[in-house]
Each structure stands twice: as structure tokens, then as C-alpha cells.
């Protein structure tokens, strides 16, 4: 696995406060770097190093949080490097693919027409392109359950709205430049709103509070307004 042949030396480790260690896995947004990030997460999950409380993957790094009363920094780093250098044999978990149903256009996606016009496409063509994409969840952040998705087609990449809307409803599917994503909670937002999913992306009362996790694959599927209303998951 060539993606994993990476130089795991002390240089890739840095501190984040007295309780955090950042593990740099590269310096670009790419699938190879992402695979390395996910390998490190799998490693942390399996190896159960003492004192490790949680970890947080991002585009090109993983940050782990630990209890220095159990293991001080140099001990955490020592064990970590030892594990990282054995990692070549680690096997990656098969990614999950999650289908997100979306009711495109109309009141639930007021900017679909605009996106279509901008690219000289029909709304149906925009939907066809958006639903044919194979998206990768690089990380979850910004808001609870908010996925940073890679893989939007350049054909429908559209700049953000000049003035953000004061209220974007939870479940809204948007396009912001070369990114696409779903607002998990109702918030102000500047992305082009092209549809809405009936699924709840943020589920505070459940065991796993986020529908998506870094490493997941996402596909969007077009549904009718009728189907949207039938599938709508309870408001928080």
C-alpha cells in the first residue's frame, strides 16, 4: 500500500495545548491523504493507547486528546510513533456508502433555477449531475454533523450567494463554490440552496449523534415532495 509509506517521524507530531497531539498526515486535500488520515483513526481505535480520550480527523491531520495525568506528552508520542511505524499492515475499514434522499428545487431548493441558469443547464440536468457524484466525507466540523464533502462536479460549482440568508433550514442541501454539503441544523448560511433532505444529520439523542462520519461515501438521490414529506424525520 503505497499510500501508507509515509515518514512517521517526530516531525509529524505537534502539540495542541497540554492535552492534544496533532498528527500531520500530509498537506493537501486528496484521497491518498484522506486514506492516511483514516488509517490513523483506525489505528487509534484499535490500539487503545493509555490515556487517550478522543481523536478528531480533518483534511490532512488527526488530533488526539489525552489525559496527561495518565500519560504525559513524551510517552504518548513515543507509543504513537511506534504504532504508526507498524501501521503498513493495517487494513482499512470498508467505507460505508450513505444515500441521502433530496427533494430538489421548489420551496425546498430555491436556488436550483439560479444554479442551472448560471451554467446554461436545465434544473433537471443540475439534479442529474448532483446525484451522479460520488462524494467523500473528509471531515465533520463547523456545526454538529456538518460534512465537508469532496467530489462536486465542476459543471455545477457555483459561488456562494452575495448576501447570506439569515435562516437556512436544517436538512438543506447546498452548493458553495466547489463544495457541496448539507446543513445539519438551522443556521444562517450563504450557500446556494438546491434542495432539502428529510434525514436528520444531527441526532443529539442518539448513540451516534451524527449521521455521517469522516471516511463515509455519500450519494444523493432525488425524491418527490410527497416522498420528502413521508420520510421527514422528527424535528429536534
Amino acid at each position, binding site marked *: 500500500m503505497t499510500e501508507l509509506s509515509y515518514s512517521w517521524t517526530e516531525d509529524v507530531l505537534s502539540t495542541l*495545548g497540554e492535552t492534544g497531539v496533532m498528527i500531520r498526515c500530509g498537506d493537501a486535500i486528496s484521497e491518498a491523504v484522506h486514506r492516511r488520515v483514516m488509517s490513523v483513526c483506525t489505528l487509534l481505535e484499535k490500539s487503545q493507547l493509555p490515556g487517550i480520550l478522543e481523536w478528531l480527523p480533518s483534511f*490532512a491531520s488527526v488530533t488526539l*486528546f489525552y489525559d496527561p*495525568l495518565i500519560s*504525559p506528552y513524551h510517552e504518548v508520542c513515543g507509543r504513537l510513533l511506534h504504532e504508526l511505524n507498524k501501521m503498513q499492515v493495517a487494513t482499512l475499514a470498508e467505507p460505508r456508502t450513505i444515500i441521502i434522499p433530496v427533494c430538489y428545487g421548489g420551496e425546498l431548493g430555491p436556488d436550483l433555477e439560479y444554479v442551472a441558469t448560471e451554467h446554461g443547464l436545465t434544473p433537471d440536468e443540475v439534479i442529474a449531475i448532483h446525484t451522479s457524484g460520488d462524494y467523500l466525507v473528509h471531515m465533520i*466540523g463547523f456545526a454538529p*454533523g*456538518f460534512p465537508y464533502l469532496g467530489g462536486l462536479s465542476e459543471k455545477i460549482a457555483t459561488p456562494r450567494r452575495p448576501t447570506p440568508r439569515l435562516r437556512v433550514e436544517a436538512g438543506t442541501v447546498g452548493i458553495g463554490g466547489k463544495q457541496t454539503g448539507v446543513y445539519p*441544523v438551522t443556521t444562517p448560511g450563504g450557500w446556494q440552496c438546491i434542495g432539502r433532505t428529510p434525514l436528520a444529520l444531527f441526532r443529539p439523542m442518539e448513540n451516534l449523534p451524527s449521521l455521517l462520519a469522516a471516511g463515509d461515501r455519500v450519494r444523493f438521490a432525488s425524491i418527490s415532495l410527497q416522498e420528502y414529506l413521508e420520510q421527514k424525520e422528527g424535528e429536534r
Partner: protein
Amino acid sequence: MSIEVIRPGLLSTVQDEGRMGFRRYGIHPGGVMDTFAARAANALVGNSRDAAVLEMTITGPELRFHENRLISLCGADLTATVDDLSVPLWRPVVLLAGSVLRFGRCRSGLRSYMAIAGGIVVPEIMGSRSTDLKTGFGGFKGRALKVGDRLSVGEASREAQAALHGLIVEAEKNNWRMHAPAWYLSSREWPAYHAEPVIRVMPGKDSAEFNEDSLERFHKERYVISPQSDRMGYRLEGAKLELVQPMDRLSEAVTYGTVQVPADGQPIILMADHHTIGGYPVIAQVARVDLPILAQAKPGDRVTFERITYEEAQQLFLEQELEWRLADQLIRRRLAEMGDHQ
């Protein structure tokens, strides 16, 4: 039984030590801003350190107690009174049933913590009772307190029950509504609360990206806390900080106390309700032992940053933890003894 909110104050929320283990789902730990004051408040009423407390900001609430309760107030001095008598801070206090606890002018600090023996009981969400104001979940219905809310209280620990009993006997004998023992947590134990605090920071991951002048200014000059500061972040105004050359770092983890510098060159310190990830250059990280001091600093206060190493910061943190464990034991013993002697 419950505690009734007659007036809610400016921003009173239920908080505990925060929500750990969910950063990877975009959920920040949150929790109390001044971890020292909250922990002291809990210890003084015999609670475990993770019990939920009330965090009250600048303008305190007015609360009616329907039963005899052992409480403690730590952190900012919001001039609390019962029947026009001052409620002492940093010590256990018994309030008899029917008492109304009122808060007045903010005399020092910004956030006051009230612990109640048994802790405030609200549903635990993701292992925590903290209010997430931004997303609106956790704590008391995911929001700040309002008029008419009623806070439920859990069962007091054995030591707290002993102390409560001892204090009630004394109070009833003298016909007092409120009574506190003579002992308290001495100011020698507190963090160095100050309106012009010196905050110790260690270098951030991008310190080397800033030019020499900027690094020097950051550690020499005073920064004023801007009114646009809240539980999410403190915006600072002062000497402009500049990079050697523009950098484009991918967004990655940040934490409580991370000092970011956006393009305008004015630093922002991320506080308890920070985003889980951030993309601005990070010039420094506030030492954990000094976060409580910062949490009590208010808009207009002036902060200076003193440089320490990562090793020093971790050592200070470990020492404080060990001191706490000892203090906690001593306080529990004191509480239990109050039942014996009175």
C-alpha cells in the same frame, strides 16, 4: 423538588465539565468557562466534580428555594444576598426553605458559579448536562434560563447531608434563613483573577509563520477584550499581527484557548464553545491553568501574554490537578465533620 427561577439574569445556563468524545462529529466539549470556580463550587457542597452547576453571567438571577439547600457560590462576585444579607463566596452556605437568592451589581469577575448539593438534574445528552446554546441542546431545554423555569436537584452526598444538617440546626437555633461555616476556600488557592491579567501562553503551531515584530508585540503589548466576545471566543484589539507571507493551511483541530489570527491581524481566543476545527493561523495556545482567569475577564479588560514552554504548561496543569485532589479530600472531611460538631 425544585428551585424556581423568578428572574433569569442576563445569561444563566446549566453547565458541567463538558461533552467529551464527540469532537469528530462536530460537537465541541463546551461546558463551564471557569473550570476552577465550577470545580471549587462543586467540592464545597460535596458534589463530584462533574455535577451540573449554574453559570451566571454579569447579571445574576433571582431564585426561590423551596427546600433547605446547601449551595456554594464561586467565581465572579455578583453581590448575592438573601434577605439583604450578603451571601459569602467560596464556602458552603445553607439556605432555608422559602429563601430567595438575589444577585445585584457585578463587583468583580464576569461569571459566577452556583453549585447545589446533589447537582442540578437535567437529562444527560452525549454524557453531559452542558447547555449547547449555539445548536440548542443539552442543559435546561437547550437554552438559557427563563422566568418560571424550575431546576430539579439530585441527591446530596453523605458529607453534604451531614453539613446541611449541622448548619440547619445552628440556623434554626438563631432564627437565621442562611448560615455558613467560618471556613472557606482561601484566595491563596484561587487562580490569579485580575482585571488586567497576565495570561501564560505557549507557542501555537503557526508561531513561526508570524514575523519577528509581530511575535514580539504579541508578548509585549496589552490587548483589550472587545465587546464582541462570548462563550465561543474572545476578540482582542491591539497591535496588529502579521505573517511573514500569506499561508494557506487546511482547517484542522482547535481547542479551548487556541489563539487564532484572522487576516485583520487582531487575535481571537477560542473559548469553551469554539468550533471543533479552524483554518486561521494559530499564534499561541493559552495554558490551561490560566483559562479560568481569562474566563473571568470581561470586555474592556486588558490582557498581556507571557510566553512559557509547553513543558512548563503541562507541569503547571499536573501540579494544579494534584493540589485539587488533595483539596477535594480536605473539603469533604470538613463537610462531614460539620455534622458531628454542631
